């Protein structure tokens, strides 16, 4: 990693969804999908975001790209606050910030050929003649390992892994700096998953990309990330370097999450921390620390006071009263 130059600085980001209104239009129920998140993404790194379904990890990714408008907070990209950008300014920014979707079966238009699909971003943003654009498409196809002769085929002719390669090619054709990967391998089979993960790693080094890698699978996140943020009900509860997080998890939730993962080895003695109960609803999250309903160390204080993220060991941050 280079000199820890900040590419994206997220400050106090919040996103609320109103799910029910009173007769007069006042909000009745609000989902706090992202609840006061502060984090930095450094240039050239991969920041992994893990958490269970409904913890707000995808909303966080989309809010950073401003595909979803934040309710509160700032997103600072390369020193400029992009939160207030209007439509055209934001459109220009999108060249630099791209998204890779989860489901390659849903994110490709079935009526467009591979060439048209990958060329679409070029048509939207770049002037220049058709040949130059086609040339560029060929280049990127080679880079993601798709033979050039597939160019005129349609998505249904490809397997899941191949489709994900098309999605990746389309995201990278504009040479972005920052890519949000939202569960890019969850829909793929195990043997194909490794191919796509390796490809993402290769492209990152070749094109000097910065990734925000969202996944529910901790083994995958561990494989690709430099730093990892753990989310629970809209808040970041722990953030640390990969090695530090896996060797020395501090937050009780991180510990439980790590121990819940089955390891493909018959000799792994399991000292499992099994959490009781379910993730509470984000409509009515518990007061204080969101995790106190399932935490075995919870005290009175956890029920009333929300812990802030604190540095405990260099860059290792954790939001838990146990570490005051």
């Amino acid at each position: 990693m280079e000199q820890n130059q900040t590419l994206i600085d997220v400050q106090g980001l919040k996103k609320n969804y109103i799910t029910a209104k009173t007769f007069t239009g006042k909000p009745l129920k609000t989902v706090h999908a992202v609840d006061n998140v502060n984090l930095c993404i450094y240039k050239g790194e991969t920041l992994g975001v893990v958490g269970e379904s409904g913890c707000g990890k995808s909303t966080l990714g989309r809010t950073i790209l401003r595909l979803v408008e934040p309710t509160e907070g700032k997103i600072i990209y390369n020193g400029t606050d992009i939160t207030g950008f209007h439509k055209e300014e934001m459109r220009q920014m999108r060249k630099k910030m791209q998204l890779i979707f989860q489901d390659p079966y849903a994110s490709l238009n079935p009526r467009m050929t591979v060439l048209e699909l990958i060329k679409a971003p070029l048509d939207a943003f770049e002037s220049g003649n058709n040949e130059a654009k086609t040339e560029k498409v060929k280049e990127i196809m080679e880079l993601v390992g798709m033979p050039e002769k597939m160019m005129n085929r349609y998505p249904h002719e490809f397997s899941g892994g191949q489709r994900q390669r098309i999605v990746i090619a389309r995201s990278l054709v504009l040479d972005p700096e920052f890519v949000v990967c939202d569960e890019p391998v969850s829909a793929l089979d195990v043997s194909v998953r490794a191919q796509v993960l390796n490809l993402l790693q290769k492209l990152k080094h070749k094109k000097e990309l910065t990734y925000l890698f969202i996944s529910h699978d901790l083994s995958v996140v561990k494989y690709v990330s430099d730093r990892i943020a753990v989310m629970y009900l809209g808040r970041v509860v722990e953030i640390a370097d990969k090695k530090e997080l896996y060797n020395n998890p501090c937050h009780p939730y991180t510990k439980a999450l790590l121990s819940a993962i089955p390891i493909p080895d018959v000799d792994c003695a399991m000292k499992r921390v099994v959490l009781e109960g379910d993730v509470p609803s984000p409509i009515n999250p518990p007061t204080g620390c969101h995790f106190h309903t399932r935490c075995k160390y919870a005290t009175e204080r956890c029920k009333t006071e929300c812990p802030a993220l604190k540095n405990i060991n260099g860059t290792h941050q954790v939001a838990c009263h146990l570490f005051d």
Partner: protein
Amino acid sequence: MSEKLIEVKDLKTQFNGKNGIVTAVDGVSFSVGKGRTLGIVGESGCGKSVTSMSILRLIPAVSGKVAGGEILFEGEDLLKKSEKEMRRIRGNEIAMIFQDSMTGLNPVMTVGKQLVETIRAHNKIDKEAAWKRAEEMLEKVGIPSPAQRLKEFPHQLSGGMRQRVMIAMALSCNAKLLIADEPTTALDVTIQAQILELMNELKKTDQTSIMLITHDMGVVAEMADDVMVMYAGKEVEYADARSVFKNPLHPYTKGLLASIPRLDQDDDRELYTIKGSVPDLDDMPEGCRFCTRCPEAKERCWKEKPGLYDVGGHKVRCFKYEKGEALNGGEQYGAESDTD
């Protein structure tokens, strides 16, 4: 090995495809002992779910049929049973839990009503006793305040809770064999841990045999006594769990294990990759079905079909082991694959 509860011999299941008949399961044989767990692993389309549907005779007649083989459950062939007899066996003897608990439950009936219906369909008891039994079952699978939950509808429960209800339903008739088809795939990891724990407990207390179908090698390592790896409708490796994980023989199993990012290993090497993807069922290679992706494929593999060879109780479908032993060592695959 303990007594066999179910033995499947040379099972063949076919479907009517667009371009003729497609064989989804092609001559699979295995058995599950009493009180044991068999893990069936494989990627999507390898025929693992079709195998379980065939056992319960749930393949719709319009789209396909079991074309051959025997399914011996406690010595009797299920394929020769009448539909009426099968109705008694489903639920009473063999129960099944599905991946998606929301499609498994009726959304417009309360949980209690559904449980009672199941219990009364299989036991001759009155409504009140059945209701009581339902409450006990929910308590057994670890649902808090069961009496309250019985009055609720499926959508009011969380995913993990619904899967518990499904398990309770499956267990309410004391089935001897539980077929679990990806029971935790739709759940979050912390909830998955709870459900796996529960299944292990029930196995211990009730001596239920379990057929666990999954694509997650981690889940299999944790739960299974025996493991069968399937690829494109055939079993490619079949042995006890320890042998499969410690000493995988088939190139596919080796590749599969090497391509999973591991939580317990601290290295940043590139992942091993199995080249290409699974061939279409109606476009299978002539010889070994894995030859198109196998790093060790020889000319012969493209032409002839390998049999299932026995290497000291460890069964594997690969010519390398034709003589009953490995021709060239059981080396594990590392990460030094081609950069793809």
